[in-house]
């Protein structure tokens, strides 16, 4: 920390990395550069901050290194025997066709819904907007529980495709709606003036501009599907994740489980690479905020009734069925049979783990985000990217890696809350990182300099200036991680310490033995806990996109 001088010191200035540093002649240049945000400064990395950031990145890389190391350690012949067998092909085919089908359906549903809400004169726009995001508050495994407990036939490919689509289409709807809102109507008007029909204008002018949002949402859905366990297990549709769990139950962390995990990691990394490339291109494609003028809304006329009906059916399927089913099973279990004590303890455990994990994750995101924003450079980028793998690693892979490593290297950590929280941090670091980074980027460093100049110490400056500026970003990041942890199932199943039951694991153990009425209250509590945070985040997202 000592090496973060506010005032440029004469003996440091000439050693700038920018070649012939103008700082020699204009000592104030450094501060000006930071103020204008042109990026690279010649300041060194504060050692404590750097050490913290490096440790966080190393922890985030544990699962990936483990999978690679494990595959190498069992040797090519054994690895090939375990990977190249018909079962792997079957799982690959299932995983790929589910992801492809789901992405396609979500794209169609998400874009249509976003267009209706943003561009048409649909009655009840605000209500529809909330309803179209609301499925995010229902974990996919609760959704599939809702369906399967009422319609046991809703299994296999068809059932799985229907149910994951209903769970995940908001992931396309949200970014596409935001992008539509930001589009400059002038382009479409020009297309009209040049003689394009409305439909052709949409295909040729609007859709290409939505591409980054659409592809980003699709990739997110694919990653979610690769990691999805609970929903697919309940729907009897085997994919890599469910197969790894079956292997885990039969062999604990045996070679077959770890090799399947290796294949899954490769799939996830391919998607992650695609996403990174896409992000690079996204900047090209996206326009600036453009004019503040809102686009004119298309009147639906005679189409209003069928469109309302269609949206109604969509919401009925995505929200009505799971919530209705939960309600049904809640009333089936008589109130005296409600294990109130158990419900209260598991709720407290879930909320406590969620809060502790969310705060831990956000706190450890800070040093990496700080370096990335305030000391941009190759090292910072590498550190930040390494925390990004969590996005692509399914809970089961992270948990399996931590179980094996803890047993072999750190038995004292094994079966502790600390290890579970570590898994959460690895898994959900990327979700909070985005928020922390952009919050820091928006906090002008000049204010910190002013505070220093006025005599505030480093920690006082952080507390009274920086922290207050970045608090909204931290809060949003923390809330995101909180929801994710409360509804996390797979890693919790493997890593929860003895006697620790969360809402998700209790729900799972009951629905596993088809005791639907017994599992319903746990599912309802999960939905209740995540609903307000989901709503809050949607409103923030709307506002953010408008600004």
């Amino acid at each position, binding site marked *: 920390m000592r090496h973060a001088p506010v005032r440029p010191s004469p003996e440091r200035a000439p050693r700038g990395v920018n070649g012939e540093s103008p700082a020699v002649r204009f000592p104030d240049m450094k501060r000006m550069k930071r103020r204008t945000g042109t990026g690279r400064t010649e300041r060194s990395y504060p050692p404590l901050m750097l050490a913290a950031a490096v440790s966080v990145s190393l922890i985030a890389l544990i699962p990936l290194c483990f999978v690679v190391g494990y595959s190498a350690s069992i040797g090519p012949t054994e690895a090939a025997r375990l990977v190249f067998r018909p079962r792997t092909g079957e799982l690959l085919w299932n995983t790929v066709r589910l992801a492809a089908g789901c992405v396609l359906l979500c794209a169609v549903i998400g874009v249509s819904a976003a267009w209706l809400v943003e561009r048409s004169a649909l009655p009840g726009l605000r209500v529809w907007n909330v309803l179209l995001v609301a499925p995010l508050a229902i974990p996919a495994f609760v959704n599939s529980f809702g369906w399967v407990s009422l319609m046991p036939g809703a299994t296999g490919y068809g059932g799985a495709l229907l149910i994951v689509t209903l769970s995940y289409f908001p992931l396309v709807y949200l970014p596409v709606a935001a992008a539509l809102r930001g589009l400059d109507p002038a382009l479409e008007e020009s297309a009209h003036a040049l003689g394009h029909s409305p439909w052709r204008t949409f295909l040729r002018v609007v859709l290409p501009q939505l591409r980054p949002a659409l592809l980003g949402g699709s990739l997110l859905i694919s990653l979610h599907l690769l990691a999805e366990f609970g929903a697919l297990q309940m729907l009897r549709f085997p994919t890599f994740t469910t197969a790894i769990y079956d292997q885990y139950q*039969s062999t*604990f*962390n*045996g070679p*077959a489980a770890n090799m399947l995990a290796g294949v899954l990691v490769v799939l996830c990394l391919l998607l992650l690479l695609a996403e990174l490339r896409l992000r690079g291109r996204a900047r090209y494609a996206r326009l600036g905020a453009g004019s503040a003028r809102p686009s004119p809304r298309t009147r639906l006329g005679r189409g209003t009734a069928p469109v309302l009906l269609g949206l109604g059916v969509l919401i009925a399927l995505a929200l009505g069925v799971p919530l209705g089913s939960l309600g049904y099973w809640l009333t089936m279990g008589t109130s005296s049979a409600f294990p109130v004590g158990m419900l209260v303890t598991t709720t*407290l*455990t879930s909320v406590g783990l969620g809060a502790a994990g969310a705060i831990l994750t956000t706190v450890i995101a800070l040093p990496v985000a700080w370096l990335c924003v305030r000391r941009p450079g190759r090292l910072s980028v590498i550190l930040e990217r390494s925390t990004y793998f969590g996005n692509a690693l399914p809970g089961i892979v992270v948990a399996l890696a931590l179980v094996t490593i803890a047993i072999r290297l750190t038995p004292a950590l094994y079966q502790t809350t600390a290890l579970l929280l570590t898994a959460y941090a690895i898994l959900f670091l990327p979700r909070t990182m985005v928020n922390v980074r952009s919050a820091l980027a928006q906090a002008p460093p000049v204010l910190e300099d002013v505070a220093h100049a006025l005599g505030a110490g480093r920690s006082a400056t952080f507390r009274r200036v920086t922290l*207050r500026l970045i608090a909204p970003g931290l809060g949003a990041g923390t809330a995101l991680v909180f929801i994710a942890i409360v509804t996390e199932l797979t890693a919790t199943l493997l890593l929860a310490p003895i*006697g620790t039951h969360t809402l998700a694991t209790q729900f799972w153990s009951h629905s596993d033995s088809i005791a639907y009425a017994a599992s319903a209250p746990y599912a309802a509590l999960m939905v209740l806990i995540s609903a307000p945070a989901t709503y809050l985040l949607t409103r923030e997202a709307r506002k953010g996109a408008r600004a």
Partner: protein
Amino acid sequence: MRRLKRLAPVVAGIAALTMLAAACGNDSSESDAGTLTLYNAQHDDLVAAMVAGFTKETGIKVDIRSGKDFELANQLVQEGDASPADVFLTENSPAMTLVDGNGRFAKVDDETVAQVPAQYVPSSHNWVGFAARATVLAYNSKALTPDRLPESIMDVAKPEWQGKVGVAAGGADFQAIVSAVVAVKGEQAAADWLKGLKANAKIYQGNGAVMKAVNAGEIQAGVIYHYYWYKDRAESGANSADTELKFFDGKDPGAFVSISGAGVLKSSKHQAQAQQLVKYLTGENGQRILSDSKALEYSIASGVPANPALKPLSELDPPAIDVATLNGPKVVELMQQAGLL
């Protein structure tokens, strides 16, 4: 700044909850001298009832970690001497054999061994059986009549059963049944049988789900353990009304009776109390709780008769199999080869 104001209460709330969580976390004293740690792969409610009886009688508290047979067995092997577990309970014996084969068990007290009939105890006396379950074929009574049922469990791998039969292949229950097929018919026959099943069977996530599917007519028959059917009949019959059970006979591998095991870990720091727990589970009081419970598994020790709702154990005709020889890892390997895992 408006955003800040709105999020401030959220952050404050989360911070408050964290402290609450930390406070909750503190009262779980793991190294309490009087508390046993039980790795339990049996049904939670059954074991909770039996353990409650034990705690009431002895004052010894028991922490339970739940998991599946092989998950916990492999975990014990990996944990080695560092394992926090004192006692291990399984649903089926192959997982006990796995742990025993790695030398993790201490010998069970002679007094306890004497409470259990010899056929349910391995000759090493390193663990004992404390409950049993019988393999059955549940069939849809509208789709099938008794005369159209298979003679042997081996027959469901024949082409005429394609798409008509269900199993819970991922579970230790079914894997124990496969181990019986290996023990009675040999490895090659078992491998062929599994290949046939891969082609024929719909795979479900548990015996309960198999029975439900049979009841709904999704499949005509499914291989399960007896108590799923009896439990459902005792409750509402909602998932079994249109099903009946076929007990295989003639010492067919399909008549296999699987033994749930209990053992004391060698690494346990509470040997005396751990032995006490196993003694209680196989003793008259423990067995009575088992027999009276809604679990409807067979009580087998201390002369306590099985629940009267069940077909008596003496009327079953299981193949004679040494409980110590059922091989879990071999079964998993065969099932991986067949593509069922």
